[in-house]
């Protein structure tokens, strides 16, 4: 039986949801040291495992743009984040759990991949 996710508008929390809420796990990440006498000795740096939310992505992107000397990218990235949120919350997205199967195709059948009739 197919279950449908209710259609909804993009909500503000889709963009601004707290990235770390509900994620208590940690992972170990190997990172090379900057200290010369520690050559070839990786440090284990413990970082919090975060969901790849649009908010987290946006923060990283803005930080990277500033690092690259492109602060004027910030408003563009914020606008892009809104479009990305709309894309991610569209009810026609596929879902690995199978819980949110799309019924968005005209006629009500599950949407297949690219159709051969369109030559791609």
């Amino acid at each position: 039986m197919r279950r449908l996710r209710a259609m909804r508008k993009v909500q503000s929390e889709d963009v601004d949801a707290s990235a770390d809420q509900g994620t208590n796990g940690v992972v170990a990440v190997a990172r090379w040291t900057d200290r010369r006498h520690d050559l070839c000795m990786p440090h284990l740096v413990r970082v919090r495992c975060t969901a790849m939310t649009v908010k987290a992505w946006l923060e990283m992107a803005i930080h990277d743009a500033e690092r690259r000397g492109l602060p004027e990218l910030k408003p563009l990235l914020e606008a892009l984040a809104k479009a990305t949120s709309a894309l991610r919350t569209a009810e026609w997205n596929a879902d690995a759990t199978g819980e949110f199967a799309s019924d968005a195709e005209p006629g009500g059948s599950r949407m297949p991949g690219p159709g051969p009739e369109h030559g791609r």
Partner: protein
Amino acid sequence: MAAEPQTIGELSRALKARQTTAEAIVDACLGRIAERNPTLNAFITVFDDDAREQARDADREIAAGRHRGPLHGVPISLKDLFDVRGAVTTAASRVRQAHVADRDATAVAMLRQAGAVIVGKTNLHEFALGTTNEESAFGPARHPLDPSRSPGGSSGGSAAAVADGMCYASIGSDTGGSIRIPAAACGLVGLKPTYGELSTDGVVPLSPTLDHIGPICRSVEDAAMIYDTLRGDRRPLDVARGGPADTAHDSRPLRLAIPRHHFLATLDAQVAAGFETACERLRESGATLTDVSVPHAGDIAAIYLHIVLSEAAAYHATALERRPEDYTPNVRMRLEMGRYILGEDYARALRGRELIRREVDAVLEGVDGLFLPALAIPAPKIGVPTVRIGGAEEPVRNIMLRCTQAFNVSGHPAVALPCGATIEGLPIGAQVVGAYGDTTGLLGVAAAVEAAFTAPVAATETYRGPGRSR
């Protein structure tokens, strides 16, 4: 001497009948370019000597009874994304200043085979990434009716050149509306065929899965003749009609569907009124118009943005690292924005594209085409980033793409054609969208729509027509 031919159909008949010569026509176009290009900035490169030589060759062949077809001896320009052997393909960018093409683009080679005279290469929004033509290494192209306004874009120089009588047609590219938007802004016909029908070989890409090429010209018939040439079908000119016979729609009344939801929701008041007047003209001609809805039309802009910016960023990444200062600032920033899009979001956009394609297929069932505006606003003032519509400020770029980008996402063929004018005399454009893979059928429907508009209406009373403006 008879009045100067206004369309390719008229010109081709006159050339074939030797009532005029290609050399005289090309001379007139080059004279117009010399007179008006300093104001309009429509051309980046003009091939004066080559064009005159090509025209003389055409006259010799036609005199010898070797008329190649409807484009033989016809002056045509190219958006400066198309390679012409031995010339710089600038893409209106300093990034390309050292580039010289070693061969003609496939489309250019086909035009030459058909005997067209290539008069020059036209200005555009840098790398076709914009709708106003304001960001160009060569300065903005300007609207022939009001040089303080944009001719639309990205093929803005092409539209300005055709509208002002500098050439009879121009070949542009269309990734989100870049043929149809300037055609609508300048009162011309612009054709975006079905995706993949016409070769983009030798054309600087913007987004290869959204890029199309096609003509900007003065009639649907002219568009059909160029389309046939570019797909390798050079049928002899039908002298009675001026174009290939199968562009005519049969005598059955047109059945058109209007996707009001989303596409007509945010229109300039004069554009909305002009479009409704056009609908009334169609009803008076016997057409049946019904309202339909593309259910996920509201997702189209997000889908489009993630595809176009990702693909553009892939093409430009190396140049952005090596020569960032050679881009205009806004184009550089938009390209940089694309470098931050995640692969998973690009994949979501591709999935969304398939959905939109099927939904457009569905609303086309049982009708001859979709009918909607081509451009939500009249030609905007240069340098103005937003427009006020219904009490809200809307970004010019977003609003200009609103009616056209859907059919780059879906790949369906679409034609823009003039349908009215504002009280200031600025053109209003309508758009007809046809079944996927049936561009020829669409051209027949568009010709019937155009015919319904030929009786005196606001457009022809106020706007005096391509090449006769001012």
